[in-house]
């Protein structure tokens, strides 16, 4: 079982990283949108690997089911004439490199140095503890989150509503 898990993890890592890079470098936006969906699936796979099925299900339900579709809506409403490869970078790409690279190095060092090799898999399913904590200790933040969602929804609708001439 152990090799199976490691192999599965390797597969998922390749999938996530590959798709992630694809999202950023894809020439056409629809491709990057779908690659993003694929990354989400891989991350969901990792969650399952970690034993957190509920979170994996939520991840798929929310990210793949709703957010990707929403972004696809966004993609379809905006022009995506495929640009020649080099042109779609922002003017500040060199500056970006200047800043992102050192941070990446720093964080990578910290991340990869993280020796804790104990198995990350959990014991039983995480449905019960998650449910108890959300509706127990974090009930109030949960309500606030729902208000936030409502506000965002109303805001988005108002922002985009075309005032009937």
């Amino acid at each position: 079982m152990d090799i199976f898990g490691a192999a599965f993890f390797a597969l998922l890592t390749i999938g996530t990283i590959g798709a992630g890079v694809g999202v950023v470098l894809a020439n056409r936006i629809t491709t990057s949108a779908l690659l993003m969906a694929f990354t989400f699936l891989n991350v969901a796979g990792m969650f399952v690997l970690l034993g957190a099925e509920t979170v994996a299900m939520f991840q798929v339900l929310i990210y793949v089911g709703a957010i990707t579709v929403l972004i696809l809506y966004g993609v379809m409403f905006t022009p995506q004439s495929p640009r020649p490869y080099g042109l779609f970078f922002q003017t500040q790409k060199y500056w970006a490199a200047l800043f992102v690279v050192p941070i990446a190095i720093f964080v990578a060092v910290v991340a990869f140095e993280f020796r804790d090799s104990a198995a990350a898999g959990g014991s039983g399913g995480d449905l019960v503890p998650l449910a108890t904590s959300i509706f127990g200790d974090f009930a109030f933040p949960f309500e606030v989150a729902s208000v936030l969602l409502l506000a965002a929804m109303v805001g988005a609708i108002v922002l985009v509503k075309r005032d009937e001439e």
Partner: protein
Amino acid sequence: MAVPLGAFIAVSAVLFFIGTAGVLVRRNAVVILMSVELMLNATNLALVAFSRRFASIDERGSVFVVFIFVVAAAEVAVGLAIILSAYRNRPTVDVDEIRQMKG
């Protein structure tokens, strides 16, 4: 399933930086939005990894992930709304060309 925690953290770090690079580099607003989603996902991964690793002590770690879902969904909705309204006012989604808010 004995995959070390370090591996998960490494993957999430790499994913996070791909997202950041995407935000800083890509010219199309929608792609920036996607890269932000990637970054959020990376954090989710790290959170769940830690919460599962220390589940014996306090298994409530992954609650925060739920809240990140909520925020991500709200963020995409509002982000897209903004992009669309910006698009309606000037027919471009290109971040470099949207300069009306210039000081």
